[in-house]
C-alpha cells in the first residue's frame, strides 16, 4: 500500500511553575509553596518537542495538534503553541482531573490522544521541571500500545512509516529504527525552539477558550455578549477547544486523585542541618592555616 498522506502529529505539553527561578518569597514560613508567586511557563523541553513536530511538518508535510491538561489558565501555553505554528490546540480541563499522578495523567492523555483521531507520531518533552519524573511520556506510549523512543535528539530520517532517530544517552548516542506510530520524548539539546511569530501573534490575538469568555467580554466591550464573542472566534477558528472527562470518555476511577496509586504522605521544607563550623579569615594566613589543617587530617595531599 502506497503511503500517500502527510504525518498526523500530536504534541503533549504542560504549563509548569518556573521552579528554576525560585526566590525567597515562594516558600512560605510554614514550608508550603506559594504558587501564586511563581510565574507559570511553557515547560522548556515541551517547546523542543513542539519544534521537532513543526520541523517534521515543514520537511515532510503534516498536521500538528497540541494537547495540554491543566487548569483553565493553561490555555496560555496553547496560545503560545498557536503563535509558534500549531494547527490545532486542545485544552483538557476538568476538576475531576485534579490531583492526578503520572499514571492517572497518562491515562487521561491517552484517551485524549485517541479522541483526536488516527496519528503517526506523538511528541512530548523528556520531563517537566515541576516534577522531573520523565514518566508521563513512556506511560502514555504504553497505554496507546505504541513503542517509545526516549531522549530523542534528532529525527535522522522519516520514510513512509519508518523513522530513524538519534537518542542522546548519558555517555554517547544511539540510533534506532522504528515503525510508526510511535512516541518520542525530546531532550532540551535537540533544537532551538523558534520564537513566537509576530504574524501569528496578531492572527491569534483573540484565541481563547469559552472558559475565558466572561473575562474577555469585560475587556472587549465591542462584544456585547459571550455569544457574540463565540460566534466571532468560531468563524475565525480562534475558539480553543476544551475537553472534559465526559468528552474523552474516561472511567472515573482511573482519573484524578481516585486513579492515582501514589499519595503524598508528607512534605517537608528542606531544613538546613547546622554543622559545626569554623570561620576562616579571607587572608593569606587564614587560608594557609586552613590548608595545613586539611593536610594534617589527611583530607588533602
Amino acid at each position, binding site marked *: 500500500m502506497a503511503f500517500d498522506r502527510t504525518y498526523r502529529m500530536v504534541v503533549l505539553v504542560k504549563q509548569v511553575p518556573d521552579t528554576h527561578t525560585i526566590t525567597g518569597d515562594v516558600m512560605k514560613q510554614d514550608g508550603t509553596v506559594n504558587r501564586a508567586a511563581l510565574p507559570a511557563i511553557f515547560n522548556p523541553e515541551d517547546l523542543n518537542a513542539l519544534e521537532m513536530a513543526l520541523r517534521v511538518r515543514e520537511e515532510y508535510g503534516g498536521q500538528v495538534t497540541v494537547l495540554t491538561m491543566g487548569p483553565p489558565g493553561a490555555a496560555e501555553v496553547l496560545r503560545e503553541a498557536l503563535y509558534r505554528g500549531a494547527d490545532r490546540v486542545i485544552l483538557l480541563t476538568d476538576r475531576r482531573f485534579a490531583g492526578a499522578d503520572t499514571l492517572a495523567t497518562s491515562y487521561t492523555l491517552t484517551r485524549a490522544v485517541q479522541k483526536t483521531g488516527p496519528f503517526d507520531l506523538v511528541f512530548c518533552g523528556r520531563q517537566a521541571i515541576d516534577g522531573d519524573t520523565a514518566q508521563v511520556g513512556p506511560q502514555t506510549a504504553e497505554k496507546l500500545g505504541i513503542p517509545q523512543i526516549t531522549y530523542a535528539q534528532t529525527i535522522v530520517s522519516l520514510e513512509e512509516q519508518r523513522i530513524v532517530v538519534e537518542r542522546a544517552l548519558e555517555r554517547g548516542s*544511539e540510533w534506532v529504527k*522504528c515503525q510508526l506510530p510511535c512516541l518520542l520524548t525530546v531532550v532540551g539539546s535537540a533544537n532551538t525552539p523558534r520564537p513566537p511569530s509576530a504574524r501569528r501573534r496578531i492572527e491569534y490575538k483573540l484565541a481563547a477558550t469559552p472558559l475565558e469568555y466572561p473575562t474577555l467580554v469585560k475587556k472587549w466591550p465591542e462584544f456585547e455578549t459571550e455569544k457574540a464573542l463565540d460566534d466571532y472566534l468560531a468563524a475565525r477558528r480562534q475558539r480553543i477547544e476544551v475537553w472534559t472527562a465526559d468528552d474523552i470518555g474516561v472511567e472515573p476511577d482511573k482519573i484524578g486523585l481516585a486513579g492515582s496509586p501514589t*499519595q503524598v504522605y508528607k512534605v*517537608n*521544607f528542606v531544613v538546613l542541618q547546622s*554543622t559545626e563550623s569554623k570561620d576562616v579569615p579571607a587572608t593569606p594566613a587564614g587560608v594557609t592555616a586552613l590548608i595545613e589543617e586539611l593536610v594534617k587530617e589527611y583530607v588533602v595531599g
Partner: protein
Amino acid sequence: MTYQKDVWIFIEQQDGRLADISLELLSKGRELADTLGSQVCGVLCGHQVEPLAEMIIQHGADRVLVADHPELADYRTLPYARVVADWVKERRPYIFLIGASPLGRDLAPRVASAIRAGLTADCTDLQIGNYTSRRENREYQDLLYQIRPAFGGNLIATIVNPTMHPQMATVREGVMRRLPPDPRRRGVVEAIQPAFDPADLVLQVLSRETRPPSVNLKDAPIIVAGGAGVGTAEGFQLIRDLANALGAEVGASRAAVDAGFVSREHQVGQTGVTVRPRLYIAAGISGAVQHRAGMDQSSKIIAINTDPGAPIFQIAHYKIVGDIHEVIPMMIRTLREKAK
C-alpha cells in the same frame, strides 16, 4: 499461603559488568527485606549474563530471576518491559526498585503502566513505615516511604502507594550506601525463558556510540565547584586551576551551567550528579536547595562566598567570607609552596 513481602531489584548490566546503582539497590533492598522479614530478588535481563547471578547473590539477593536471550543483548524498552512485566504479574512482589539511570527511567514507567502500579521517580531515601489514609480512614502497615526532592528541590516529599502494588520507585545513583559483597551468601538462580510478541521487536538498534566519560564526579575524592559568583566563562579557569592544584575534579552549580561557564556534565545537584567526596569546595555558590541536595553528604565542605548570608554557609565546615578571585589564588599559592 502467606503473603511474601518480597523486594525486587532490577539489575542493570553492561558488557558483563553490574551497574553501580544496582549494587547500591541490592544493599538497600537487603535492609528493607530484613525489616519486612522477606526476601530480595534480583531481576536480570540480557544475553550471556548468567555468570553475574552469583555476584548479585553476594551483594544481597536471595534469589535471581534470569532471562538470557539474544533479543535482550542490547537494552530495548519493549522486550525488557515484556519480560519484567510478565514476571511481576505472575509473582506479585511487594516492592520493586529500579535505578534512576537513563535506562531505568525509560523502563520503569513502561512497566508501571503495563501492570497499573504506582511509581515514584528519583528517590533519595527509602524507609518502611505505617500510613494512615485520612481519605479512607484506614491504617496501612509497613508501607514503603518513597522519599524524594520535589518542586525543584525546595521540598522533600514522602510518597506512599497503599494498594496498587508493587510499590515501584526509581532511585538516584550515588545516594544509597553500597555494602561489600559477602562471598558466603547463598541463593537460588532461576532461569526463565522469555516469550516475545512480534510487536515487542519492532524497534531496532542500528548503532551505538559511547564516549568515555570526561568527568567523573561520582568517584572524585575532592571536588572544586564553581557557581554564579565566578562571573564569566573565562573566570571558571580559576576553578580549574584550584582543582589541578588539589588533584580534584571540577564541579558546578546549575546557575554556572545555565550561564554557559562550563558544560552540563559538571553539574552537581538534584538535576545533576549526587556526590559525597572527602572534600567539597563550593566557590561562589550561594547554595540553593537544588545544589545542596547533591553535595550535603560531603565529609568536609569549604564555602567561599562574598555574601555572609549565603545558605551554603549553613552546611559548610569552613566558612570563608570573601571574594573567590582573591581567596582561590591564595589557596593555589599555599598548595604550590607545600608541593615544593
